[in-house]
């Protein structure tokens, strides 16, 4: 019974940690997005709440929680209430099988940096993400509003259609790694950048990666595939009628899905928490160097500041960065902090890509969107899978 | 004892689900609901297949379930297309109105 207790205990602790980290990330991802888009558009972005608007997410949360929760009289009530719940729970569910790093030792227990490892983890994620469409479709339908309905219809058609090339794109690296467990998938990519599936022989999965990313944009309804909530034609698409916490649920679901697909891309193609080159060549020093450079930059900008308040904040940030750089040198935390750094770095890069694309690209026309996946992505993904399968079969044995 | 489920429970569950599917088929008038009742029956049968597979400790039942799923997918595509066509022509989803095969 002690083992069971400890298993449940450990799982509960891990869940709490992951949940807290995820929620914080969600909140701050929103902030980062606004900041990045603002800088792309040459404006400062959120700046008022806290230094550099760092407390803006907290303010947003408070606003969303305290707003009046409107329940329009003409909606299908049970489904209207069910939809955001479905959306957020499906989005959060898939994070449970994603591994963030290797096993760590905390005191007497050794455990994996992962909530649970399914030997069909990839299938699980596919299954859960395929269920995610219900939230949006039902929200659209239950709102009893033509904009919402069209948004929901578009969304379900789009998600079903893009699931196909996505699954095919996922299948190709799986063939190379020969497993469905996400943890083993990463372990198979150990040994530097040329062991990652995106560059790994016998057939580098570059095409597969690109297809996966395009499909991921569509699955998360991000620009340029945000037809379901196209503001200028559908007001706000499927969540037109939602407000307050229910609106926040859809919002969070979208960002959680972004994180999930970014993590999936990292795991499937970019080697998960593996460093791009061996420790012998100084891989363990990379975070220290990066944070040190960040600290130097912050200190420099603190002395040559454009705004008055930055004179105080930027040096503080610089010092914090230096401290973090120092932490990465401690041998006792290196074993789990370094993998986490690489994982978060890769995922963050892909998330940055999401934001970058949002700031850059216009929206698809709807028929182009469907034609693109069925007439281009799907055949290419199929061909890529065939070539991969052929080469894998050729080189095995 | 509490740690194991008799296999007949699974089969009984399958029978209940199947009967409910039949009931849906018989008592519902909406053509889509009737169609979904068929899916429910297929699911009930799938459960029996997987159960038998467990009993015989081999994988064939899973394969049959797999094939049933594929057939169900094909059936859903064609069936829903037919429903769309029917609705386009008659603007009704009531199955009792679609009886022009008589005479």
């Amino acid at each position, binding site marked *: 019974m002690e083992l069971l207790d400890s298993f449940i205990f450990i799982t509960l602790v891990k869940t709490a940690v992951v949940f807290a980290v995820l929620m914080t990330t969600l909140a701050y991802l929103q902030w980062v997005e606004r900041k990045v888009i603002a800088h792309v558009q040459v404006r400062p972005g959120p700046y008022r709440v806290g230094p550099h608007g760092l407390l803006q997410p907290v303010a947003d949360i408070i606003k969303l929680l305290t707003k009046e929760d409107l329940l329009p009289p003409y909606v299908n009530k049970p489904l209207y209430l069910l939809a955001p719940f479905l959306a957020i729970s499906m989005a959060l569910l898939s994070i449970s099988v994603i591994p963030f790093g290797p096993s760590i030792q905390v005191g007497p227990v050794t455990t994996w940096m992962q909530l649970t490892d399914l030997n069909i983890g990839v299938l699980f994620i596919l299954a859960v993400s395929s269920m995610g469409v219900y939230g949006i479709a039902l929200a659209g339908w239950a709102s009893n509003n033509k904009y919402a309905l069209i948004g*929901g219809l578009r969304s379900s058609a789009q998600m*079903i259609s893009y699931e196909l090339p996505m699954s095919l794109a996922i299948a190709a690296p799986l063939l190379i790694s020969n497993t469905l467990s996400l943890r083993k998938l990463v372990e198979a990519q150990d040994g530097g950048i040329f062991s990652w599936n995106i560059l790994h022989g016998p057939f580098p999965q570059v095409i597969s990666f690109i297809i996966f990313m395009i499909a991921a944009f569509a699955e998360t309804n991000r620009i340029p595939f945000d037809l379901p909530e196209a503001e200028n034609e559908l007001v706000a698409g499927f969540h037109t009628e939602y407000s307050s916490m229910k609106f926040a649920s859809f919002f969070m679901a979208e960002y959680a899905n972004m994180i999930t697909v970014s993590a999936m891309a990292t795991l499937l193609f970019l080697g998960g928490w593996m460093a791009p080159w061996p420790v012998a060549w100084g891989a363990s020093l990379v975070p220290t160097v990066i944070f040190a450079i960040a600290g130097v930059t912050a200190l420099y900008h603190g002395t040559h500041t454009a705004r008055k308040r930055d004179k105080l904040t930027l040096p503080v940030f610089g010092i914090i960065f230096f401290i973090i750089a120092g932490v990465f040198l401690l041998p006792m935390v290196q074993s789990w902090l370094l993998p986490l750094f690489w994982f978060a770095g890769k995922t963050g890069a892909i998330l940055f890509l999401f934001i970058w694309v949002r700031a850059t690209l216009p929206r698809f026309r709807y028929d182009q969107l469907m034609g693109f996946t069925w007439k281009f992505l799907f055949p290419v993904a199929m061909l890529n899978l065939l070539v991969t399968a052929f080469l894998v079969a050729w080189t095995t044995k | 004892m509490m740690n194991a489920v008799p296999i007949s429970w699974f089969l009984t569950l399958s029978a209940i689900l199947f009967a409910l599917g039949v009931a849906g088929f018989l008592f519902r008038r909406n053509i889509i609901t009737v169609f979904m009742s068929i899916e429910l029956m297929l699911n009930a049968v799938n459960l029996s297949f997987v159960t038998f597979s467990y009993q015989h400790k081999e994988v064939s039942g899973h394969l049959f379930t797999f094939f049933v799923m594929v057939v169900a997918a094909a059936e859903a595509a064609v069936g829903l297309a037919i429903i769309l066509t029917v*609705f386009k022509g008659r603007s009704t989803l009531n199955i009792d109105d679609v009886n022009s095969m008589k005479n």
Partner: protein
Amino acid sequence: MDVILFLIFALIAVACAINVVVQTHPISSALSLVGVMGSLAVLYLLLGAEFIAAAQVIVYAGAIMVLFVFVIMLLNAGAETRKGRSYLIPGAPLLIVFLGLMAFVVQRIFPDSTMVRFGGFTGGGPKDVGTALFTTYLLPFEVTSILILVAIIGAIVLARKEIDQ
């Protein structure tokens, strides 16, 4: 543990299935059916059918039922109209007899000798299914792909708009 798990999900399945039948609105029925499928997926896991459980969710709940929901939304189908004769009189007694007979047969053929335990059968992973699929059941598999192709073509032919010449 297993019994509790089974009972929970069996009850959910039966409740959802009843809901499928009694709801007058097709979209409620559809969502209940998704519930049945989800709980069946858990029961499949209990029976050691990992791959089938995943496929159940991906294919049935994630694709087929979405198609249903999609069509219901497209046709904007309302609650069903009550007209035409009811089949409750011949149907319900027959159904009860049928269910009773089925239960009787199951009890007769399968006495409680075989017990299902989680992990009692591990041959249902993707690898086992795939091996069987591409060796013993290769021909059915290929035939199924033809079936799918035919279904796609049939669906397109049925549902496309007539192009005016």
